[in-house]
């Protein structure tokens, strides 16, 4: 693996190796006082963020630092970017300075794909427009695996603004690869075109596409092994996608009552940041069913695993001696 740009077409073997690595790292760091591995000493990781972010950026930074990489953070707002420099030139500048890996967040779908063609460094997509956010899907899969075990045959229900969600797109592709079935619940205005029939839409992927669509959350919950709530972005609330925040919360919010419709073992995920009272009730977010802080914790280990696989260049191994 040279870059991590998308979860579409990622081989199951690679996904499993990444998740196994993340789990091994988590176990080895558990209870340690000094959480620092020498693995990526001398490597430089640049996080290049064109959108504001708290958790993803911090998570990558911590992941890099725990593996002893030198991590440099660059925000679009306070840099040459603000002076009109192109993404290509900024990235070429950073790699000329010796960046081994660029972690990119950008509002344009496909930005990480383009970057990978421009620079010699490894590229990790930390969110590109409404396309993909692969490490989010990996940390979600890691969390679900911890709670549910093998995901083969499990049903994951994704609820909310799928249309604009890179989290949803990444998860759909990745969870299908791991054998899960996907159910999408949203108003028709927030579903991407033909999402139940994407199987052959890209040459790199093909075949089985176990995705179904529903507009009835109450009917979808009893058969769900996990539910993934998506944040409703405030700018969508005025884009004619739905009449009002109140109506959205009534139709698609995960309330206390709806929590009761889920099977006992079902897990509640949210990628954050949450709007409590909108897509998720205050108490539901703190319930034992919710795995929201586990997701955040796993995020660090998953990102360590990705950095390790890209920068240590060993696809099928998990870190051994040095861990």
């Amino acid at each position: 693996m040279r870059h991590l740009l998308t979860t579409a077409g990622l081989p199951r073997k690679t996904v499993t190796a990444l998740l196994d690595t993340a789990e091994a790292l988590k176990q080895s760091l558990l209870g340690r006082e000094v959480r620092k591995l020498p693995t990526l000493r001398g490597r430089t990781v640049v996080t290049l963020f064109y959108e504001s972010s708290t958790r993803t950026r911090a998570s990558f930074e911590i992941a890099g630092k725990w593996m002893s990489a030198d991590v440099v953070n660059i925000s679009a707002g306070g840099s040459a970017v603000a002076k009109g420099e192109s993404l290509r030139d900024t990235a070429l500048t950073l790699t000329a300075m010796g960046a081994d890996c660029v972690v990119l967040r950008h509002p344009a779908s496909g930005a990480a794909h383009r970057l990978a063609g421009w620079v010699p460094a490894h590229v990790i997509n930390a969110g590109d427009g409404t396309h993909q956010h692969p490490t989010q899907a990996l940390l979600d899969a890691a969390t679900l695996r911890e709670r549910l075990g093998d995901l083969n045959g499990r049903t994951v229900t994704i609820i909310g603004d799928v249309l604009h969600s890179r989290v949803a797109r990444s998860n759909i592709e990745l969870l299908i690869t791991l054998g899960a079935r996907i159910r999408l619940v949203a108003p028709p205005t927030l579903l991407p075109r033909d999402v139940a029939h994407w199987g052959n839409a890209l040459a790199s992927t093909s075949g089985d596409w176990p995705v179904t669509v529903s507009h009835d959350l109450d009917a979808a919950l009893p058969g769900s092994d996990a539910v993934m709530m998506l944040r409703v972005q405030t700018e969508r609330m005025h884009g004619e996608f739905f009449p009002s925040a109140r109506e959205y919360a009534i139709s698609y919010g995960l309330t206390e009552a709806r929590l009761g419709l889920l099977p006992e073992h079902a897990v509640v995920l949210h990628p954050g940041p949450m709007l409590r009272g909108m897509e998720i009730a205050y108490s539901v977010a703190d319930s034992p069913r919710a795995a929201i802080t586990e997701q955040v914790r796993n995020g660090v280990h998953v990102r360590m695993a990705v950095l390790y696989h890209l920068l240590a260049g060993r696809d099928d191994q998990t870190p051994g001696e040095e861990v």
Partner: protein
Amino acid sequence: MTRPFLLRGIRRYGAGEPVNLLVRNGLIAELGASVDGTGAEIFNGGGLVALPGLVDLHTHLREPGREDTETIATGSAAAALGGYTAVFAMANTDPVADTAVVVEYVYRRGRDIGLVDVHPVGAVTAGLHGQRLAELGAMATSAAAVRLFSDDGLCVHDSLLMRRALEYACGLGGVIAQHAEDPRLTAGAQAHEGRVAARLGLAGWPPAAEESIVARDCLLARDAGAALHICHVSSAGTVELLRWAKRRSIRVSAEVTPHHLLLTDERLSGYDPVNKVNPPLRTAADTEALRTALAEGIVDCVATDHAPHAAQDKDCEWSAARPGMLGLQTALSVVIATMVQPGLLDWRGVARVMSERPAQIGRAADQGRPIAVGEPANLVLVDPDATWTVHGVQLASLADNTPYEGMELPGRVVLTMLRGQVTTEDGKVQG
């Protein structure tokens, strides 16, 4: 008085026995198997296909304003090398071609360069702002004698303004060429609204944004009895609307671009903006419907929408890139690949869709004429059996990015002649 010129052994419209064609004083003087043209300069045609010089209703020459991407000189060269003898230069320059002064400048530059007839297209609305009519009459009576008006790149979306434009242009013997795109339905749109764009996270450009404007404008043209031309038809749905309108004798004509005949949205998976164009590349079902419609005459002609863009406007992330692609030097080859080779059009048909109909629609009286004695010698000779590989840097345009890069295409333009003057021969501009 220039020396006579003999084209020996050419096949008119690719059919019949080879004949000799003698050009004198810019006209086809003699035609026949035994014409010998003593004293004339001789070109051995060797059975090449002879067509009337191609006419492009939709070219962006970028001058004035973006001379870093194309000029009237480089665009004229690209056109002549592509087999064209006339192009219609779109109005979205800087300054906009919305006054007699600008259209006369473009017209005169084209005439001075002399490789192709450059017919400026006049803007429909002042500044392309879509708010009030530009001085269509002044442009029509100028030296440029503008007959084709378009806000191309932008849609004349205000219904009342479009109605008035159709009516007013009708009085000038003109036609409004509409870029059909309801701007409300395409806010932020990046790619054809289908599975590919949805999966790639690119905001969708729905066919209904084109089709709803086409339907509306056909009704407006019907009531005004006015002439309407639809630019770059991209969807199967638009074809159905055109079929409906033509059956009712509404005065509507339409063009399709080579790229909409050949390329589909499946090319988008790598996010390379060379594939970004407006209207967007659509599905295989759309290209199929467009090819059939062109063969049937529901879509009248092929127009390139040749739209050069600077490297920095293409070698960037998808949403930052400008829409548009080069087309003048690849159009004929793409038409051969998509229409001639599958048997949808013969060479007579190619002459119709790439020369005769566009000349009629654009009111270019001396273009798109029959290959017959007494007609202007606007001709192109094509080697139908040759193939070539497209390399952007080898094209005459200043911009060199193209979705056809590295693609092998059939058919090669061997010679282009404008009113008896050879403008290009064997891929080289003459004179």
